[in-house]
């Protein structure tokens, strides 16, 4: 047991720097993916058919194909079409696609939850369609979507562990590397699991609390 703690103390700095990479990927993916998700949620309702179909295809492929496939597609596949991305670049590109696809559905549900009277009132006030979206519908819809988006953000941090497959030096890759050199897989993987849990458990509790808070106001 003593040996384990000494080993953990020794490996912790490497895992923590891996965790920073995991958090960076997650943050980048959310910052890029969620606005794209909002755009997709609006375009899916567009009256221009080709635009609607194209958006639908982007969303359905992003949700239908495993993130692990998209990651490898970006990392191993794009170079053959002349676009060489680093493992960080591929990770951000692939997971942003996934994020855009999933969050567009969450946001669409949020937008649909805004009562019809709101857009009618905006129209009556003489707001243009764009202004109605910008000042009336989107702010309210995003508030409804917020808890689900936060829950998705936690899932994305977990999904960042898939970047192990494209040699991104994130938390799991570091743990695996230490495991192969020390052969103490169980201990190092347990520490990695603890680190994921140390972020995800408080984050989920926070999301649940926010959800209850917002629920009170709605009631």
């Amino acid at each position: 047991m003593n040996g384990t703690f000494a080993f953990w103390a020794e490996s912790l700095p490497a895992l923590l720097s891996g965790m920073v990479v995991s958090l960076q990927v997650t943050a980048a993916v959310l910052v890029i993916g969620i606005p794209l998700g909002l755009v997709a949620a609006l375009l899916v309702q567009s009256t221009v058919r080709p635009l609607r179909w194209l958006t639908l295809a982007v969303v359905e492929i992003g949700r239908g194909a495993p993130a692990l496939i998209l990651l490898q597609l970006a990392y191993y596949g794009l170079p053959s079409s002349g676009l060489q991305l680093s493992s960080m670049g591929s990770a951000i590109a692939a997971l942003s696609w996934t994020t855009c696809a999933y969050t567009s559905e969450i946001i669409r549900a949020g937008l649909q939850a805004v009562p019809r009277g709101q857009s009618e009132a905006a129209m009556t006030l003489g707001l243009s369609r764009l202004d109605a979206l910008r000042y009336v519908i989107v702010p309210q819809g995003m508030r409804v979507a917020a808890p689900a988006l936060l829950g998705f953000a936690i899932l994305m941090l977990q999904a960042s562990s898939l970047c192990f497959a494209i040699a991104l030096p994130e938390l799991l890759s570091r743990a695996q590397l230490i495991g192969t050199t020390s052969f103490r897989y169980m201990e190092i993987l347990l520490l990695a699991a603890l680190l994921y849990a140390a972020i995800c458990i408080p984050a989920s509790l926070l999301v649940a609390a926010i959800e209850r808070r917002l629920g009170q106001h709605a009631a």
Partner: protein
Amino acid sequence: MTAEGALLIAGGISWTVIVTLCAFGLGAALGVPICAMHVSRSRVLHGLAVVLIVILRSVPPIVWIFLLYFGIGSGWLSIGPVPAAIVALGVITAANMAEIYRGALKSIHPGQWDASHALGLSAWSEFKDVMVPQLFRVTLPSATTYLIGLLKDSAIASTIGVMEITYLAGYLASKQFGAALQIFAFAGALYILISLPLAAVARVADARLRAKVAQ
């Protein structure tokens, strides 16, 4: 990518389906006792279920698979890649299914319990004839959504060498590097193709079950 390559990758469908269905079966079964513990009057059992669910859901699936395959497999107990993937995905599914069951239990009107008492139904009959049919209907849509999600999560079994779609795609891409884009696009399309009939069957079943109870 050649036709042979496409066939090679399509050969992985069987392992993808086996891993997905076995993990789902395991999770759907284990989810029942976890849900029962969660709604139990015993504080200890309830607390245990909450802790179990939180831990299972807070660690990424790929870390669970590695813990089982490399962690336990490296010393304690020799475990093959397929059982490791099934058990790891199965226990995560159990936690999520327990929550789905719990949500369904909440949706049953309390009057239903009173009514079955008033009718003098035995506890077993109350469970089998009153609760299960309603629970099944309520659970079906979220369980199918989860199953389709699990199908995609099963791709991570490739990282420990289960020869399913993603593994074979990676293998082929390493041989024909120039065709990697088509290879992974084809593999991704396979997952979408498998999930389409699943979603369709679920939609039809849901509509039928709804029609049965519609007033």
